[in-house]
């Protein structure tokens, strides 16, 4: 891009309302992966790298990894590797890789008004399967969808795509913490989504024009696709990807999912707690950022240790953890699996093994 072109694009971005915080996608450069870096047997409703979800009605399965295969200027990408193919595509079959955006963060488009602004999606993509693919925006309130086709021209080559979606004047997104806007990359579409003849690039609620022309990426277990540098911004101009600092991006992700980082062998303080019963403790834990809403508590083989003069013991890994009360910033937890705790005892509670996380995804 020439310097003059770059200045002009930034000028357009300023006119559209943002020079910073332009990118409404969180973790668009795939650098944050609190749940892990490799996920096997991925099917419908699975979050992998932070904020990115796979949804499908298909026999297809994937291994999804955080990859170091990137275009210049990026440190990570996401790789979706087909491990179970869908070669018998039913009419209702679909596979989408997508991110949902909170209503609070979807207001800047002015959607649902006569002054609504365009949406621009830009991203890097690479696949061994060339052909036509569909990117779609969808507003949950009103159910309006608009799609744009893009072409992967060369196999196994990073390509930069820019797609401009028209203003959406039909329905205003709720200004709250619910899911209001989603960016979806289609990987498979059955005839329920392709049978309408012509792809709808305008806002519609008609299903069979949403993904006309979509290539079946999941036709073979040899197939794979990578994404990085995903950006959604207000206006009709794609500006350069907004690189944010790692800590800043992590905090944005922690609004939806938060796990206490733990190195095996290290003890990590979870909360100050007290005896609830002889086998249970109770305590308050605080989150590093306000979560979207009261989170679920995910416990997979998690193990905890209490440490006081009367009690120095670890509980049974994977014992039940329940919520006594909680909100977006704190949570009162009850943890079972201890033995012989003394009444009235108080102690630090450490998280020492397994997976323990708070989830408030959209």
């Amino acid at each position: 891009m020439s310097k003059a072109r770059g200045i002009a694009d930034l000028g357009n971005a300023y006119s559209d309302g943002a020079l910073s915080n332009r990118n409404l996608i969180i973790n668009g450069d795939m650098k944050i992966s609190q749940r892990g870096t490799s996920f096997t047997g991925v099917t419908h409703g699975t979050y992998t790298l932070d904020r990115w979800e796979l949804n499908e009605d298909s026999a297809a399965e994937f291994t999804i990894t955080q990859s170091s295969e990137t275009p210049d200027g990026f440190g990570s990408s996401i790789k979706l590797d087909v491990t179970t193919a869908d070669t018998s595509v039913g009419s209702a079959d679909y596979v989408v890789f997508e991110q949902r955006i909170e209503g609070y963060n979807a207001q800047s488009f002015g959607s649902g008004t006569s002054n609504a602004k365009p949406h621009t999606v830009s991203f890097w993509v690479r696949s061994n399967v060339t052909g036509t693919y569909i990117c779609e925006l969808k507003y949950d309130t009103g159910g309006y969808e608009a799609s744009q086709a893009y072409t992967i021209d060369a196999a196994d080559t990073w390509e930069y795509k820019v797609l401009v979606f028209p203003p959406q004047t039909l329905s205003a997104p709720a200004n709250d913490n619910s899911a209001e806007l989603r960016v979806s990359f289609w990987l498979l579409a059955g005839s329920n989504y392709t049978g309408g003849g012509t792809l709808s690039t305008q806002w519609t609620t008609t299903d069979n024009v949403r993904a006309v022309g979509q290539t079946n990426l999941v036709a073979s277990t040899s197939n794979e696709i990578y994404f990085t540098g995903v950006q959604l911004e207000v206006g009709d101009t794609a500006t350069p990807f907004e690189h944010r600092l790692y800590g800043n991006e992590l905090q944005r992700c922690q609004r939806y999912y938060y796990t206490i980082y733990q190195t095996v062998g290290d003890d990590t303080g979870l909360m100050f707690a007290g005896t609830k019963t002889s086998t249970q403790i109770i305590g308050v834990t605080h989150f590093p950022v306000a979560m979207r809403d009261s989170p679920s508590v995910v416990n997979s083989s998690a193990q905890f240790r209490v440490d006081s003069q009367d009690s120095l013991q670890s509980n049974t890994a994977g014992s039940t953890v329940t919520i006594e009360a909680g909100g977006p910033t704190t949570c009162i937890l009850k943890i079972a699996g201890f033995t012989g705790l003394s009444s009235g005892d108080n102690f630090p509670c450490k998280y020492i093994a397994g997976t323990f996380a708070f989830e408030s995804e959209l």
Partner: protein
Amino acid sequence: MPYQFYKTENCIVLPTETGNIAIPVKAANSDYQAVLDAIIAEGADCFDGDIPEDLQAAADAKLASGAYNANRA
């Protein structure tokens, strides 16, 4: 059958092979909404014991409002 779960005073507990997921009874929690979807789709089969009245009422309200949408793209 997608879920076998039970409810405590303050949350829904979904046991897993290696632990559990504790889900707050809050409308904005997407896991709570998934539990309501399971009750709508599977009825009593998805619950270990009788479905608590408050959960059944919330599921009925979700179905009546048209907010339930089974596995749609």
